[in-house]
């Protein structure tokens, strides 16, 4: 999850959508509540809601030409409002869904997360250059035969998939970290795209694994420890960047 979050997040940060991943994770709240209410895997509920949201965000972006950040901002608060109403009226305990708990992750969950991460990374690798070119110049991308809006849609769907999978492990409140912080750390010290994407993935993996190990060792919750590890990496890269100037 750390690797896929970091890799997909590297594009999120370049698109100046670092906080979109965070907002996206909150969009999943009604899906989580549905899963808990009707006793089906919360991942499926979260993914269904995220999938629909991604399509709505993409379509609104195409039609209104508003930035994804504004659209996700509106969608996110609406989804959160609906989620809270469902939680309160359904008398649910969403603590685990909000904060995640890796100790409750089964072998099946872990295998599914690995499989989904591999698919998400491979598909993102196929569209990585197209997405970057679209960011640099939409005209150049279109003149090269790239459908910028379709590529954006595929990317948003892949982000939904990774976010929905990550919720189980680090929880809805913290999964946004996985797509924002490792990439932001990598950007601080990268001179080219290859280094940047590789380092984003590596920092995601380092944050996730060291956080989980530390949480085991210190007997603390895994989600917050993953975030604390990642922020430590971020602080180091900020210092390195500052030193290099």
């Amino acid at each position, binding site marked *: 999850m750390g690797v896929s979050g970091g890799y997909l997040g590297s594009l999120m940060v*370049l698109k100046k959508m670092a906080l979109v991943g965070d907002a996206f994770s909150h969009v999943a709240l009604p899906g989580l509540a549905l899963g808990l209410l009707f006793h089906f895997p919360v991942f499926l509920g979260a993914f269904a809601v995220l999938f629909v949201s991604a399509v709505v965000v993409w379509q609104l972006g195409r039609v209104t030409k508003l930035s994804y950040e504004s659209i996700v901002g509106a969608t996110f608060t609406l989804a959160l409002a609906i989620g809270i109403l469902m939680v309160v009226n359904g008398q649910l305990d969403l603590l685990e869904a909000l904060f995640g708990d890796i100790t409750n992750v089964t072998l099946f969950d872990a295998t599914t997360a690995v499989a989904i991460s591999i698919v998400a990374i491979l598909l993102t690798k196929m569209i990585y*250059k197209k997405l*970057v*070119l679209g*960011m*640099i*110049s939409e*005209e*150049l991308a*279109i*003149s*090269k035969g790239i459908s910028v809006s379709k590529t954006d849609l595929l990317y948003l769907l892949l982000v939904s998939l990774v976010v929905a999978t990550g919720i189980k492990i680090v929880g809805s409140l913290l999964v946004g970290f996985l797509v924002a912080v490792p990439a932001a750390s990598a*950007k601080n010290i*990268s*001179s*080219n*795209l*290859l*280094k*940047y994407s590789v380092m984003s993935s590596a920092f995601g993996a380092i944050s996730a694994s060291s956080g989980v190990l530390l949480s085991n060792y210190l007997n603390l919750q895994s989600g917050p420890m993953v975030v604390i590890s990642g922020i430590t990496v971020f602080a180091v890269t900020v210092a390195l960047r500052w030193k290099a100037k």
Partner: protein
Amino acid sequence: MDNDNDYILKVSNLSVRIQNQAILDNVNFKVRRGTTLAVLGPNGAGKTVLFRTLLNLVPYDGKVEWKGKVKIGYVPQNIAVGDIPISVKEFLSFRDASDVPSCLDAVRLDGKDVSGKRLGILSGGQLRRVLIAWALIDNPNVLLFDEPTTGVDIGGEEPILVMLNELKKSKNMTILLITHDVHIVNEYSDYLLALNKCVNFFGESKEIMNPTVQRTLYGETVCVGAPQR
């Protein structure tokens, strides 16, 4: 005598509307093979939209006829590199450039020095040259160039224009360039299309020295030539 085969592009009755506003209105012109056409006009005159239309990127009414086998290289006015950590080599490899150093050599950039640099830290002139290298990768015979000297300091303008002229001659390239600069029209183009939604003037570039033409374009005479010392 005019022969139809001499022309590589013929545009007839071209109109473009975007969000119900007329951007181009009944535009007619043609471009002779191996020549440079300068497209001149104020901001909002529809120059960039004209290029996007020629690239078939926007819907239009009328006719855009490219004659024979045409390969178009496009250099946009702006790209949003910002702080994207992408090297020159990586950028050019997006177009499957197998030999990046020779692509850069063709635009008089030192391949060894520039290819590993981040696109975002290049000077205006270097960036324009990299964009020209991008456009030249698959040996186009037509180059559409949106404002060749945007973001380039005064000393860097001339070498780019001279290089374009040499490319035109050596590769028998047809060049269409957008400019605000009367000096560029006069020195580096063969034909002039003055645009302000519709065509104000279409003819030989040297006509821009004609006071009557200048009054049509600007309402008054414009000084062209080297400043007096």
